[in-house]
């Protein structure tokens, strides 16, 4: 299937500047820099590009807000490559293999919003990606694609790499600002949003790596071309990550709207163990489970929402028939308990209480009334945290309760897991969700 970022399927190996130029690399920048920045914002808006970090916010709109914000002369562009969603590999793949595509997108975005400084915020564990980007930045600067007087224009941009701490909330956009400013990765209360009060108090656009990788192809080929991929509401392609439960784990770039079945069966080859699918989590670990009957749901934001789940950043996890959903969600709940940064009391209360409740269920304690407590705890804490982590344990837990009540009741009535788990079905600890 034809792709936008990887036109001929995912190719491993760093694409050098020469190869990138041969396929039209940096032509988008040469073209854009001779037009007003508003033209870049418009083409990205018209193309319908939405953020690939999970929220799906329209990129053009974010840039417009950043341009229009009144916060003085300085503006900042941040490429967010924190990528701490467990199982997500797409940003690493882009940074390691297509560094110039990412850099060109970054320079175009900075030009569009009027930023003189861009930070590349990259997961500190991604040593190879940081090396690849560092080398590519050197090549690109020597060729005049960033620095002073870019391609002979008056536009100047400085770019700096900042290693991102390896914890879940460190990828949250306001936590990114805190880290770059030299503090710990604690999200800020919103509003104000970074587009108005961002880095050092200035208007800032924080964009995911995959989002920015889409910018050069859009600018070069136009909005109409881009809209040929995907659906009306979710234009373009998205990179999906499949984990080791599938025969062919890895990353796959597919147009939005492709049926989930195609990704799981054609790309991933189905479950490695040959077992049937009991449940699908389309945006692990924070989305609702879908029953296997929903396997034909199109992979786009609206269809997934209508099916009762979400698309997130495209990390798909499968639960095998014969495994126990209680054992699955307890690991997810533990993950959020550990990853809660702890600054909002409600988030600590919620994540700790949910995990305690699940452990009680697992041990067969509390009786059926315990199952009614999950929804109450979630409802009580709704909207009380600075960031969205407080909303994340809800969909997996509530959908598991709704779809698989028998697993919960079996634990409660016997005090042990209703199924004997095969070794491959046991996620040993929360590290498996990293």
């Amino acid at each position: 299937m034809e792709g936008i970022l990887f036109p001929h399927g995912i190719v491993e190996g760093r694409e050098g500047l020469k190869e990138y130029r041969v396929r039209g690399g940096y032509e988008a920048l040469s073209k854009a820099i001779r037009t007003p920045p508003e033209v870049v914002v418009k083409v990205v808006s018209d193309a319908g590009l939405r953020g690939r970090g999970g929220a799906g916010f329209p990129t053009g709109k974010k840039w417009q807000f950043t341009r229009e914000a009144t916060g003085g002369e300085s503006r900042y562009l941040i490429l967010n490559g924190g990528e701490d969603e467990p199982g997500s590999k797409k940003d690493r793949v882009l940074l390691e293999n297509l560094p110039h595509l990412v850099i060109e997108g970054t320079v175009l975005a900075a030009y569009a919003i009027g930023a003189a400084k861009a930070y590349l915020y990259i997961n500190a564990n991604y040593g190879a990606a940081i090396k690849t980007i560092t080398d590519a930045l050197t090549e690109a600067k020597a060729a005049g694609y960033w620095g002073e007087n870019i391609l002979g224009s008056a536009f100047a941009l400085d770019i700096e790499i900042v290693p991102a701490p390896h914890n879940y909330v460190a990828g949250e956009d306001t936590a990114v600002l805190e880290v770059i400013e030299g503090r710990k990765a604690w999200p800020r209360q919103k509003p104000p949003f970074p587009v108005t009060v961002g880095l050092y108090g200035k208007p800032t656009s924080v964009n995911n790596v995959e989002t920015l990788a889409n910018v050069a192809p859009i600018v070069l080929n136009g909005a109409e071309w881009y809209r040929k991929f995907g659906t009306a509401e979710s234009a373009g392609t998205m990179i999906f990550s499949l984990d080791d439960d599938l025969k062919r784990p890895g990353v796959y770039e597919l147009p939005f709207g492709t049926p989930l079945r195609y990704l799981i069966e054609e790309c991933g080859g189905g479950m490695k163990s040959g077992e049937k699918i009991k449940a699908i989590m389309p945006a692990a670990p924070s989305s609702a489970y879908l029953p296997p009957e929903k396997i034909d749901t199109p992979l786009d934001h609206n269809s997934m929402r209508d099916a009762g789940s979400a698309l997130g950043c495209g990390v798909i996890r499968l639960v095998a028939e014969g495994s126990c959903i209680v054992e699955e969600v307890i690991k997810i709940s533990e993950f959020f308990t550990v990853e809660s940064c702890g600054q909002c009391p409600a988030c600590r209360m919620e994540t700790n209480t949910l995990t305690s409740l699940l452990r009680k269920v697992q041990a067969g304690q509390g009786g059926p009334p315990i199952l009614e407590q999950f929804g109450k705890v979630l409802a009580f804490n709704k909207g009380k945290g600075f960031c969205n982590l407080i909303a994340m344990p809800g969909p997996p837990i509530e959908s598991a309760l709704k779809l698989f009540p028998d697993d919960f009741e079996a634990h409660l009535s016997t005090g042990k897991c209703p199924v004997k788990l095969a070794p491959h079905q046991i996620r040993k600890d929360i590290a498996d969700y990293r």
Partner: protein
Amino acid sequence: MSRTCLVCQNIDCKSRGSEQVMAELEKRVTAKGLTDVEVKPYMCFGACQEGPNVVLYPDKHWYAKVKVEDLDEITDHLAGGPHVQRLDTIDSSLKELIYQLLDTGVF
């Protein structure tokens, strides 16, 4: 049947002195010879603005904005004295949520 005094220890309540409240409450309970009462930390009752909170369970009494000066009265209540009405300020819906959680054995 043993009784429990749960004292919230979330960051907010700690900043309001809940660690000292818990330590002092333990001393008073021991001094009064209330051997059936155990003082234990609890993550959070969701009433941070009203903290530190002390919840007596299974008696189901909730005392909010507890200061060290209030602990003698609370200990008297545990020993069979009167309920400390002025510290009973939490709304009933939150009490119900937390009491139901405690009934499931989550502490």
